């Protein structure tokens, strides 16, 4: 994959955001009129822990080029410990994707609190840029789902 020659490529990013912190953070970045790419599609989940590894894979199947999971900061989970489990789970999953040769920059976990609107926008900008450099997801895509 050639890096840097994807200037026109606009990656599709799926962001799973926990209802209590990160989704509110995304809201805040919106009300503060902060810019982040329009091709970030947010899916609200009750807790980052709700995200099953299958969700991540299916996002890639359906055309995502990068998947980011946002939750409360460790220690701040609305359900006390959900994000701690998420952390272990996603570490192992991302490690496995890396093991299978899927580019590791396509996945990320980021903790964003309800007050961190700026961090949310910055994270999305940064992540989108990282994925854009990688180019379209080819290694974990479902050819049947490719737009004709």
């Amino acid at each position, binding site marked *: 994959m050639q890096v840097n020659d994807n200037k026109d490529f606009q990656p599709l990013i799926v962001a799973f955001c926990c209802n209590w912190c990160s989704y509110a953070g995304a809201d805040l970045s919106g009300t503060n009129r902060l810019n982040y790419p329009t091709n970030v599609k947010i899916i609200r989940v009750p807790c980052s822990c709700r995200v099953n590894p299958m969700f991540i894979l299916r996002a890639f199947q*359906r*055309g995502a080029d990068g998947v980011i999971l946002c939750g409360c900061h460790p220690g701040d989970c609305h359900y006390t410990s959900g994000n701690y489990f998420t952390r272990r789970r996603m570490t192992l999953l991302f490690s496995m994707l890396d093991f299978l040769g899927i580019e590791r920059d396509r996945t990320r976990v980021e903790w964003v609190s309800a007050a961190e609107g700026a961090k949310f926008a910055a994270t999305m900008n940064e992540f989108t840029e990282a994925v854009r450099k990688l180019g379209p997801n080819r290694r974990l895509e*479902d050819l*049947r*789902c490719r*737009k*004709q």
Partner: protein
Amino acid sequence: MLRISADKLDSLFEAIAAKQALYIPADREDGEAEYKKYVSGMKLTSRLNTLRSAKDFFFPQTEDIVEFRMDGKKIEVNDIRKECEDFVIFGVRACDARSFTILDKVYLVDPVDSFYKNRRDHGTVVTMACSRPAETCFCQTFGIDPTAPEGDCACWKAGNYYYFKANTEKGQVFIDSIAGLLEEGDTAELDSTVARTREIMKKLPLANLSTENFGGDKLNEYFNSDKWAELSESCLGCGTCTFVCPTCQCYDIKDFNTGNGIKRYRCWDSCMYSDFTKMAHGNPRLTQLERFRQRFMHKLVYFPANNNGEFGCVGCGRCLSKCPISMNIVKVMKALEDK
């Protein structure tokens, strides 16, 4: 008889592949053989047969049937069938060649399956006689002669030559197309090779396996046999036997939402799976016993009942070597006969 010397086999393959797609059984890294599309330099495998059967060519594991575009309440149906291109499969063993006639009895009877027929029409099957059968071989049980295989065109390796004989019109066309490379030769060496193979076949451990106690008339006797519980108790319910089997022909039809339409595809299914007969209101085959029984009853009783006594097994021995728990049709036949 027409023949070609072994050192010219590559040029023969080149000549065939220049006109149409050619598939030959070739070695894989892990020591197994599988059919691969011929590219220059590819060699025939030394293994007796391929891990997967040759049915894939006519009945692939998955194929798209039809596409739907959904728009509100409207549905548009797109027939996505395309005319298949001509191809040659070289080196099909006698057992697999017979499996095609068995599949034909399912897919080419009314209503004809156009997907299967399309491939069948465009494929030329060149069979290869066996000379070194394995202990798991029992094709003779089903009246198959591995020294005189069916198929459009048969091929024998004897000494330093490959001999060819057409069995069908399509096979004759094939031979005519490569006639420039073939030469006439006597068959003394071939005859002695065939005779030697026939002697070996008598020594095979399963040479005495017989079908005389099986057939359509045994339906109730075997269906109610108390042997099934014991035979099926360690069955994992996986689909290995059905997927490596050259005659297993069951399929499932499923829809896949691609996000820009619905693809309806069909894929191999296995009667060993728990959802094979599952309906909204229940399942007539609730335990592995019934599913296991279905597979073997189908091959040994139901199929002959519907097809003038022809059995739904060709004795290729794949299930004997691939079943994770080594339960197979030979053990079932022997257990059922043992009253």
